């Protein structure tokens, strides 16, 4: 049997020269007369090892990390087609503790398969969920999602089953499934890995959502900053359609489902579901006031399920293995797993899918190996640009939606951005306000004006006016933004700002004592 060699096609690997490595391997094999079967797999999510080249051996897949094209000749000299030892060796990939200790459910196939091979997908459990869903009533399918405890993974953590049931029960000639793939939070890349690394899984999840709610059209709203994701999804949709998964008769049943990709245009606030719907309709991405909720009046005024990529990509395994299987993972009211993303100043950055309940310390220290700079970790921002900065005193809180909410923090989309002891939290707080000013849709005043005033107040404090008056002004402003904004953009920008002020006052030039806690 021809040896199979894997070189990822994920954009992270491509940015590090994966195409040149793949070319070099093919040429070197031809030159040496060695028969190889080159597979372009997805990334394993062990991003610090990219480009991670793997080779199939009788013992399992052997890996070579951080490979450069110039390593290829020496890899052959070391006998890499049979798993030979080389300076780049990382051993059996499945045995790498970072991967071995994960609980990969949503990302069960990540990096193992060729993302655009239907045969590979089916050989690794693909379509089992959809087949199970097609054998159920719509009511039972919605109940399955509800029973699994799956909550929206985009950040809001709303129970997906309730959304689905609301859409199913709504009466309308046309209903829609919209996948929110506008992953704009810094520190998050799990949506991207899902789209590039296992696009069929996301497609399967959307078809199941259609079957369960009676929606016959789906849209994947993908941000324009993700051209590789868009290309992977479009190719996968074409193959899924050719294979009869999409169209008038899904897998030969009476269910119809059509799916298309819509490209965003560089607006962070379009990750908010109502702004996203406006954008899908071709308009400016301005947030809508709720109610009505999108489940009743969504896209073009019709009942619409809007779910994040990870939510929808988790649906197939829930149907394949049953609601109880999924529900058994996690803690408290946070059921299942979350793909955490280790980002920023971290030694081993990548995707770590684990059940809820793991601590930040374990993720950052045990998995992440501390900072990339080798300096002490000072703060970790959890949950994207609208998440709080957590000081060391909070690193042992279990990552669970409710436990985090209790300290005024958010789990969000599971992104962790690590900052070392050279960071300036006042500068980061000012940046948070600046980002809000750049990206505010402008509909509500607290966000539109408050963000600009916030930049100014923080700048004044940083420039030496550390009077109580200025600090109180900043806190009042944050309070207005939290209470008066229409959506999370203005409503949560104060989270990073106030956490920086509360836990790192010395960076603002204030006395390094715990000031009075802010209204969270």
């Amino acid at each position, binding site marked *: 049997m021809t040896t199979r060699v894997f070189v990822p096609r994920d*954009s*992270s690997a*491509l*940015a*590090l020269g994966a195409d040149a490595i793949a070319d070099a391997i093919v040429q070197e094999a031809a030159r040496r007369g060695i028969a190889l079967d080159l597979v372009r797999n997805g990334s394993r999510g062990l*991003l*610090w090892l*990219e480009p991670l080249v793997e080779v199939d051996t009788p013992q399992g897949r052997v890996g070579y990390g951080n490979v450069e094209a110039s390593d290829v000749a020496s890899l052959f000299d070391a006998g890499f087609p049979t798993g030979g030892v080389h300076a780049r060796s990382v051993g059996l990939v499945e045995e790498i503790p970072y991967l071995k200790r994960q609980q990969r459910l949503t990302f069960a196939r990540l990096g193992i398969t060729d993302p655009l091979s239907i045969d590979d997908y089916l050989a690794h459990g693909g379509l089992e969920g959809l087949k199970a869903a097609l054998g159920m009533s719509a009511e039972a399918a919605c109940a399955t999602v509800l029973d699994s405890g799956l909550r929206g993974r985009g950040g809001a953590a709303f129970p997906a089953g309730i959304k689905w049931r609301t859409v199913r029960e709504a009466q309308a000639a046309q209903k829609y499934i919209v996948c929110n793939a506008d*992953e*704009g*939070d*810094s*520190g*998050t*890349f799990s*949506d*991207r890995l899902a789209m590039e690394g296992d696009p069929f899984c996301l497609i399967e999840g959307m078809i199941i959502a259609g079957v369960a709610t009676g929606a016959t059209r789906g849209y994947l709203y993908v941000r*324009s*900053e*993700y*051209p590789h994701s868009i290309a992977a999804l479009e190719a996968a949709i074409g193959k899924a359609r050719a294979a009869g998964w999409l169209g008038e008769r899904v897998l030969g049943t009476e269910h119809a489902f059509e799916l298309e990709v*819509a*490209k*965003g*245009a*560089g*607006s*962070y606030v379009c990750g908010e579901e109502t702004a996203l719907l406006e*954008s*899908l*309709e*071709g*308009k*400016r*991405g301005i947030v809508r006031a709720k109610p009505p909720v999108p489940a009743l009046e969504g896209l073009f005024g019709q009942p619409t399920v809007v779910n994040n990529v990870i939510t929808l990509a988790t649906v197939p395994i829930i149907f394949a293995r049953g609601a109880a299987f999924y529900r058994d993972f996690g803690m408290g009211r946070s059921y299942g797993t979350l793909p955490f*993303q*280790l*980002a*920023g*100043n*971290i030694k081993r*950055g*990548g995707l770590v899918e684990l059940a809820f309940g793991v601590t930040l310390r374990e993720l950052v220290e045990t998995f992440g190996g501390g900072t*990339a700079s080798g300096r002490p970790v000072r703060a970790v*921002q959890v949950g994207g*640009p609208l998440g709080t900065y957590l000081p060391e005193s909070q690193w042992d809180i279990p990552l669970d939606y409710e436990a985090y909410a209790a300290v005024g923090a958010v789990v969000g989309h599971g*992104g962790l*951005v*690590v*900052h*070392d002891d050279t*960071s300036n939290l006042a500068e*980061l707080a000012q*940046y948070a306000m600046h*980002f809000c000013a*750049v*990206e505010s849709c402008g509909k509500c005043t607290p966000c539109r004006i408050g963000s600009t005033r916030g930049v100014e107040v923080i700048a004044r404090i940083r420039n030496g006016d550390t009077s109580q008056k200025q600090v109180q002004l900043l806190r009042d402003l944050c309070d207005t933004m939290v209470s008066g904004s229409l959506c999370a953009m203005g409503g949560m920008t104060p989270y990073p700002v106030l956490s920086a002020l509360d836990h790192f006052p010395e960076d603002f030039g204030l006395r390094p004592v715990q000031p009075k806690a802010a209204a969270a």
Partner: protein
Amino acid sequence: MEHASVPAPDELVRRHFSPAASLIAVLHAIQDEAGFVPPEVVAPLARAFNLSRAEVHGVITYYHHFRTHPPAPVTIALCRAEACRSMGTEALAQHIEARTGCRFDAAHGDGNGTAHDAQVELESVYCLGQCALSPSMTINGTLHVKVTPIKFDARIDQAHADAARISNTKESA
């Protein structure tokens, strides 16, 4: 000037408008072909979609992705968001400005799609989804991660060489 090689506005709209497509999808198609959205397409687009010119203009200017002037031969988009900040993107931004003699986001705010003759254009972006491999940037759309000043210098030299080659090919064609 630079507009010379761009198809006429009416032609662009005729080619890419379809009643089933959203305005944003049509704008993407126009920008993909022309390299930017010429302000002259606003009126024919408004007619095609039965919208006011203000509405079309509003959509074009709302979204950061749409540009109303031709891109410079070398266009750099550097991520300025938190993960990249934690890995020194601000210092890298200073290096890039010093090296290219250009300012970040200088093209923003000129509003009227005025052409400019700079060889390099610097844009701030907020997240390219490569947060475990910060800092990241694109140069003429090609992604680069774990960028250092030294790595940037090598890439920018390459980008200028590529741009000059493309420009020469166009002139001889």
